[in-house]
């Protein structure tokens, strides 16, 4: 965040939500990192007077926030869209209990799947869980709406969902500072079992309260300033919410617009009034026909997904061209270029593991994290990836389906943070129901993909304070795994030996591959020495063993006709490997693979 003037700031949607939470007087916040939500908690952790933490998973994060709300303080839970699936259980029942202090759940959806495994539309959760949902369009609105969400939560005695998307979370804009709010809730222990103990007899009564509350909310959204008609040319009228509103304003600046800042429940009277005032009605929304379905159910005729795509992000051009096909711009033809996909970093400990797996003829049941990049060539060593923690039960399920045939052929791979998130229960199942699959835990001490957030195995809190570090070996043994190995994945050859031994066993085994992420601050600060190919004499025979690691520091230089001989290599050598010492990160995996002693550490 940066000051522009005394009253205005330049900040991202996520930074604005953190500021909004602070201005709203949030006392406790918990969540699990996940793009595009991560920076909310990271930023909030820098404010005074608010307790923040990373929970092991989103269900725990929301439950912590529910507990804080029950104690009467304002509480926030943050997560990415798929995290809400994990947290859905407490979400649906906290809808029945309601709140004491205001409770807001931020869901950061990722249309276009920039960094996600699916692009589910979490507005459906507000409908299904029977809770109100706010949907801001930009950082400024995000901050103001978050504060209003806490007020609404306390006013209606309900958790409130708050949906952002990548183009709100990671967009920077101008945000006005605001004052700190006071909460009407009172802090303390209050025993109200008729509100908080959800066993059937009580839940049945609370079920009715939920309906009364949503009826009250439906009245309230008719007049809230966040739902507003912007007068304009009524030949075309647009109903829209979230970032789609901005695309509508840019594509059709003169048109009449009904902007829904609260996308659930819907203001039926306001919608009817607007629909009646325009000649032709269009609903512009990303992903599912959420508004469209519910508005059509009111008996209102409208355009929507007949014109607007339901896959991926929208933008101004998509909206304009869908409605005015004649307005489409002619674009330059794309030029075919070698692709530049993301890659594991130079020195990444995961690379050695996936190199070994790529040569072991095993089915690799993968998981969510940087290591999912092990799927890409030249390693191509991941055969399935579904969701957080799924690697372990999927391997077990395959082993049960295949019986003897699965012996030494199925391996699951999971990161330390993902294992703690939801891999542990899968491992307990593997042991309890006895399949001989091998689990590799890639223990780099941090939640790396989302930008190095600490987790329960890291030994520190979100603020960098010391914390108990989960002992993964002891945990695996405690759940009944008899064969637990620890390897250094940079020692590629030794790691292969251990992996082969583990997969041959007829009982469950765990291999913990332990080496720190190279992006950790302490790893960046260390004096990194480069490995090189051509010190003194070049022993490289062009076998390409090191090239097959796919390390960004290693490149192949092909020889021209006669060049090999001229440079003193064998006549038929095709080329040589070179290491870029500016990129090399000192892991030595390539050196441990080279059989010709052609790669040595610079100081040697």
């Amino acid at each position, binding site marked *: 965040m940066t000051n522009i003037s005394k009253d205005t700031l*330049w900040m991202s949607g996520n930074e604005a939500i953190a500021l909004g939470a602070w201005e709203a007087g949030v006392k406790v916040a918990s969540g699990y990192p996940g793009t595009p939500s991560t920076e909310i908690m990271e930023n909030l952790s820098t404010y005074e007077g608010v307790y923040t933490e990373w929970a092991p998973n989103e269900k725990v994060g929301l439950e912590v926030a529910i507990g804080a709300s029950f104690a009467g303080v304002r509480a926030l839970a943050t997560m990415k869209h798929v995290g809400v699936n994990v947290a859905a259980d407490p979400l649906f029942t906290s809808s029945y209990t309601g709140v004491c202090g205001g409770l807001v759940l931020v869901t950061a959806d990722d249309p276009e799947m920039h960094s996600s495994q699916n692009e589910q539309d979490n507005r459906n959760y507000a409908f299904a869980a029977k809770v109100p949902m706010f949907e801001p369009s930009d950082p400024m609105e995000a901050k103001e709406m978050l504060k209003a969400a806490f007020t609404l939560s306390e006013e209606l005695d309900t958790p409130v969902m708050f949906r952002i998307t990548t183009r709100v979370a990671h*967009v920077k804009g*101008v945000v006005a500072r605001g004052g700190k709010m006071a909460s009407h809730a009172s802090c303390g222990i209050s025993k109200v079992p008729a509100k908080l103990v959800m066993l059937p007899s009580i839940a049945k009564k609370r079920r009715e309260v939920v309906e009364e509350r949503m009826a009250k909310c439906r009245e309230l959204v008719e007049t809230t300033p966040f739902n507003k008609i912007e007068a304009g040319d009524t030949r075309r009228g647009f109903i829209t919410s979230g970032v789609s509103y*901005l695309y509508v304003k840019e594509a059709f600046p003169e048109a009449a617009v009904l902007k829904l800042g609260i996308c659930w429940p819907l203001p039926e009277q306001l919608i009817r009034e607007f629909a009646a005032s325009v000649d032709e009605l269009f609903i512009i929304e990303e992903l599912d026909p959420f508004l469209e379905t519910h508005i059509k159910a009111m008996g209102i005729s409208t355009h929507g997904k007949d014109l607007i795509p339901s896959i991926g992000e929208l933008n101004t051009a998509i909206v304009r061209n869908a409605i005015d096909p004649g307005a489409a711009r002619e674009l330059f033809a794309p030029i075919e270029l070698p692709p530049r996909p993301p890659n594991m970093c130079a020195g990444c400990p995961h690379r050695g593991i996936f190199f070994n797996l790529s040569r072991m003829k095993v089915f690799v049941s993968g998981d969510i994290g940087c290591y999912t*990049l092990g799927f*890409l060539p030249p390693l191509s060593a991941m055969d399935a990836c579904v969701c957080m923690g799924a690697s372990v039960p999927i391997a077990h399920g395959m082993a049960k389906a295949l019986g003897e045939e699965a012996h030494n052929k199925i391996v699951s791979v999971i990161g330390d943070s993902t294992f703690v998130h939801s891999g542990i229960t899968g491992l307990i199942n593997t042991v309890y129901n006895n399949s001989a699959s091998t689990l590799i835990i890639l223990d780099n001490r941090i939640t790396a993909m989302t930008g190095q957030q600490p987790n329960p195995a890291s030994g520190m809190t979100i603020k960098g304070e010391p914390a108990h570090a989960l002992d993964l070996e002891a945990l695996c043994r405690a759940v009944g795994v008899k064969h637990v190995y620890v390897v250094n994945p940079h020692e590629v050859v030794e790691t292969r030996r251990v992996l082969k031994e583990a997969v041959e066993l007829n009982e469950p085994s765990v291999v913990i591959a332990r080496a720190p992420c190279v992006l950790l601050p302490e790893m960046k600060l260390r004096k990194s020495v480069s490995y090189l190919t051509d010190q003194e004499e070049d022993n490289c025979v062009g076998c390409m063993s090191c090239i097959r690691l*796919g390390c960004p520091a290693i490149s192949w230089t092909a020889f021209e006709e006669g060049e090999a001989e001229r440079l003193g290599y064998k006549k038929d050598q095709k080329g040589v490997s070179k290491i870029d010492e500016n990129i090399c990160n000192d892991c030595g995996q390539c050196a441990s693979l080279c059989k010709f002693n052609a790669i040595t550490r610079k100081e040697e």
Partner: protein
Amino acid sequence: MESTGNILFSGVGGQGILLASEITAYSLLLAGYDAKKSEVHGMAQRGGSVTAQLRYGKKVWSPLIEPGCADIQVAFEMMEAVRYITSLHKGSTVIVNTQRILPPAVATGQTAYPEKILDHLTAVGVRVVQVDAFDLAREVGEARTANVVMVGALSVFLPVAAAIYEEVIATRVPERFRDVNLKAFRAGRKAGSMEV
């Protein structure tokens, strides 16, 4: 300025695109414009092709540049100057750092780095401004300031006084790197000016 200006930054994850787009955005804000900037985090940052989109004007609605509407592209790598050609229009200016970073398929010898790649841009009426930012950065004493050299070259094409950028750089960069970054900015601005 009534219409919205569109600046696309492109390059390879780790080249300092974020800081360059931040300095530019903040300079535009101090010059009195509204601005919005969009970027993608997470998976996209692991050494892959990366973009940031910056829009400025009297009032900016959408955070995304429409296809065919980028007025200026600042490309930190040659191939990444051409990858987003569908964002450009006739008369767009592409300021390109003439550096090559090999993508995996080239580094592993499966394919070659395309030759005369910038010709694709000039052929369709896009103006190309070449800056050897890496070399200029080394000349001022710090190779890692190549991104600020690019900001300097870009500054020539934007309606913001040089003094504003220098003020922003002075406040946004840690003190011990301040002078070298200011030198990098001026070197880039000089290189850009020669092309106007």
